[in-house]
């Protein structure tokens, strides 16, 4: 009320429309607009990308996403590599949740070569464990990270610490901190080390405590609410129009979760229900992610309880040096922390794939959706909106 009175919330009906269409030229020489760049060297940009903003005062009137700063040509490189050599390369396609890439490339090759039935039971459970741990570490960064976009750095500090603990568990299990290179075509690369479950349980208890703390810090925070509520709203009708997936879709009530829709591994044996919210704004998305944090902790506990004690970790497969896969194509998807994450894989009967194409959720979220969503937003909110859409540039440009 007072805002309106003081003129801080302009009556938008009285102003000319700000929603510039993509491709419309904004005449910078009119001195009405200014162009600023958010990134690539900017602390407020996710990863190494850039958003070119045309602003009128504090309001964005047009935005363009620029990617390619992290472009390495993965899809080209994997075309040059044997099937087994693909997975160390593929894992680097997305730093935030690397295991998903490994799983996709392994499953694609298994499916096309007919070895998907041969993957041992133990390996399947371990795959699930590593995928859920990856989701957990992603959320531990992501949930407080949303607070961090509004300069609530405390949650980030706690969250990244706990993420480090999960990375320690990853290190024990897989032999590496970030790029685990654990899921290999045919199976996984190691059993649980001794005492892993106990140490994991310790960490999960810490995370339980953190979940409560972060709720008090962020979701019962008047300033956070003031900034996050009503900001960057996604409506259900936008979901199909823009190809929105994952928590971004669930935040506005569209329940899409690959783990439920197309159960892979043993997700059908786990008891969970993907959380949803109805508002579709940043607060709702963060809230959904927070609930997912609880759920992921629970899923890890379920997996550790249900997983067999011992077993084979890799199927018997042909010699990796000259493993050939007959001609075929497939699309495999999974639910990453950011939503549906898929891979289109084509083989031509040789020892190397013909084409690998990754479908990252950020591809649509960070370009088509973000550019449209930023129009009319405040410059101060740009970073928050990017993070709330879980923009991850490496999976866009690959």
């Amino acid at each position, binding site marked *: 009320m007072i805002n309106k009175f003081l003129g801080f919330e302009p009556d938008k009906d009285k102003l000319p429309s700000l929603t510039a269409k993509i491709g419309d030229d904004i005449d910078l020489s009119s001195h009405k607009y200014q162009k600023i760049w958010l990134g690539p060297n900017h602390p407020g940009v996710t990863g190494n990308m850039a958003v070119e903003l045309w602003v009128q005062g504090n309001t964005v009137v047009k935005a363009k996403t620029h990617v390619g700063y992290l472009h390495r040509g993965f899809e080209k490189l994997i075309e040059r*590599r*044997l099937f*087994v*050599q*693909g*997975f*160390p*390369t593929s894992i680097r396609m997305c730093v935030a949740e690397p295991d998903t890439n490994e799983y996709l490339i392994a499953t694609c090759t298994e499916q096309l070569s007919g070895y998907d039935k041969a993957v041992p039971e133990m390996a399947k459970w371990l795959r699930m464990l590593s995928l859920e741990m990856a989701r957990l570490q992603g959320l531990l960064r992501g949930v407080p990270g949303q607070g961090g976009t509004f300069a609530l750095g*405390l949650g980030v500090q706690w969250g990244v*610490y706990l993420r480090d603990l999960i990375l*320690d568990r990853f*290190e*024990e*299990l*897989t*032999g*590496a901190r970030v*790029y685990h*290179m654990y899921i290999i075509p045919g*199976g996984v*690369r*190691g*059993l649980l*080390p001794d005492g892993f479950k106990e140490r994991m349980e310790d960490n999960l208890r810490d995370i339980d405590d953190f979940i409560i*703390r972060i709720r*008090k*810090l962020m979701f*019962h*925070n*008047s300033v956070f*609410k*003031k900034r996050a509520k009503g900001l960057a709203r996604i409506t259900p009708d936008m979901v199909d129009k823009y190809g929105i997936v994952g928590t971004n879709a669930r935040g506005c009530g569209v329940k899409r979760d690959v783990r439920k829709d197309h159960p892979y591994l043993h997700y059908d044996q786990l008891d969970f229900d993907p959380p949803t919210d109805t508002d579709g704004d940043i607060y709702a998305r963060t809230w959904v992610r927070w609930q997912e944090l609880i759920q992921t902790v629970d899923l890890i506990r379920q997996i550790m309880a249900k997983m067999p004690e011992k077993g*084979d*970790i*890799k199927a*018997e497969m*042909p*010699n*990796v*040096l*000259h493993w050939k896969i007959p001609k075929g194509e497939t699309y495999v998807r999974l639910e990453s922390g950011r939503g549906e994450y898929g891979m289109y894989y084509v083989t031509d009967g040789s020892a190397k794939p013909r084409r690998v194409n990754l479908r990252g959720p950020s591809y649509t979220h960070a370009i088509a959706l973000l550019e449209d969503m930023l129009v009319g937003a405040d410059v101060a909110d740009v970073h928050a909106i990017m993070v709330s859409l879980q923009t991850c540039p490496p999976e866009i440009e690959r």
Partner: protein
Amino acid sequence: MSLKDILTPFTAWSKVVKEPVTIKDPLNREAAPRYRGFHDNDIDTCIGCGTCEAICENEAIDLVPVDGIETKDGDSGLRPKIDYGRCCWCALCVDICTTNSLRLTNAYKWVDTDPDNFRFVPGVDEKDWYKREEGWRKPEPNYEFYGLKRVEMGELHPEEREDSFVEMIKGYSKEQAEAEADRCVECGICTATCPAHMGIPEYIKAIRNDDLEEGLRILYDTNPLPEICGRICTHKCETVCTIGHKGDPLSIRWLKRYIADQNPSEKYKKILETDILKKNGKKVAIIGSGPAGLSAAHYLVLLGYEVEIFEKLEKAGGMMRYGIPEYRLPYDQIDKDVNYILSLGVKIHYNVTVGKDITLKKLGEDFDAVFAGTGLHLGRSTRIEGTDHENVYQSIELLRKITQGEEIYVPEKIVVIGGGNVAMDITRSLARLQNQKYGKVQVIATSLETEEKMPADREEVIEAREEKAIVNPGWSPQRIEIVDGKIKGLHVVQCLSLFDETGNFNPQCNMENKNFFEADMIVESIGQGMDVSYISEDIKEHLELGPRGRFRVNDYFQTSLPWLFMGGDTIQGPDVIHGIANGHKAALGIDKFLIGE
């Protein structure tokens, strides 16, 4: 905005009294036991096979020679050098390492100002992390990048084969051969060990690609007797096969046989493109149609020479035909290889004994060069008491007689002295004959060497036992007991060692531990000698002698008489593949001698 929303965030301050969770000394923190840190290599176990280089997707690994490591059979003398400007620590190199020598320690700190320093040979260049035990090793269990188990070769059941000379090894089917070929890691270590230096990885690859014609071409590059070699080669290559360090070595011999078997002999000429051969007008005589002679003939005829072979016996093949029983090497397979060589235009004179029917000197005059691949056809005797008895036989004689279809004396109890492959051959042949005759077997094979050191192939011993022959090694024969002119048996004592410290043959026996093998017939099979009676004295005096009573030849098997080349068993000991290699090389030598560079 409720008051709760203003006050609850302050609960975060309760953390201020807690001790920080920071790692106090992060610079000396140990990584997890399984952490993939920097490389270490056990250079004594490593054989430099280069599989790590092959799997490395970043081309981070080079194979470089290392001081103090010799190149020898089964060890290339190279060691992996890793470029940390390329490595991504995926540890695929560790997982695939054929000897399990490569590993990653859990060290992870390497800071340097010079980017050129980040290359090192693990295990050789001094690094402080080698003493760490923790680190990444190949995961267990059942985590392999290639099959460790050999594809089982189908063979006749002992009951089926024990009384017949039908070939006992069935050969691989297409699926089996491809599965077996799939295990190869293409390191090529075996090529050096193979006396003929066959392109083993290449023809195995041809099997994988299902391009058997290409496979045959590769075989004939270095070996004109693939059917024969595919059955009876001593497969030294398999002893150094890198896969053998962790699992069963590849069945290289059976794969070779598979290629040869699958190509029909009618197509050979077309596949090998030998329909029309150029002639250069020069003539070469070859004495003996054994592996060395046939191999020399083959390559000489390809080089354009007119080749004539003089064979003492009535059929070609030499020791391959007359020394090896039919169940191991069926005669039609010998004919397949021999006929192909003959079809190239090689003339062969059967039943011509050089030295008797025609002199060597005459050959030297009639032909531009002579190659003698005469082989070892004289049996050696133990010279113990009683060996002059008429029922003490030489194995080589008996085998020839069996081949020629002559009736031989087969009593109920037989003892074979000798632990080599020939001994096993005669043992098993006699066992079959006994079976045919009496329906039961009582052959005892004994040798000086103990079970572990027996020179015979392991599977030969096992198969002999399957056929109910008794193999009882580790005994030194003392004397043959003869009562009333009839052999009663063989007295033996336990043999402790064969060689003294200097490596000379000097058996030591434990005279206390005695044994007696009953026998009606004794077969000696302790080695063969060469028959050089075909060389007349005037020629012989021009020939220099080398060690162990053999003639001295140069690298191209040329004797001191320039037109006379010698090769095969007489020069390099009893072995088909050596004979083939000798023949091939002598052919090149003859070519060099006659045509020049």
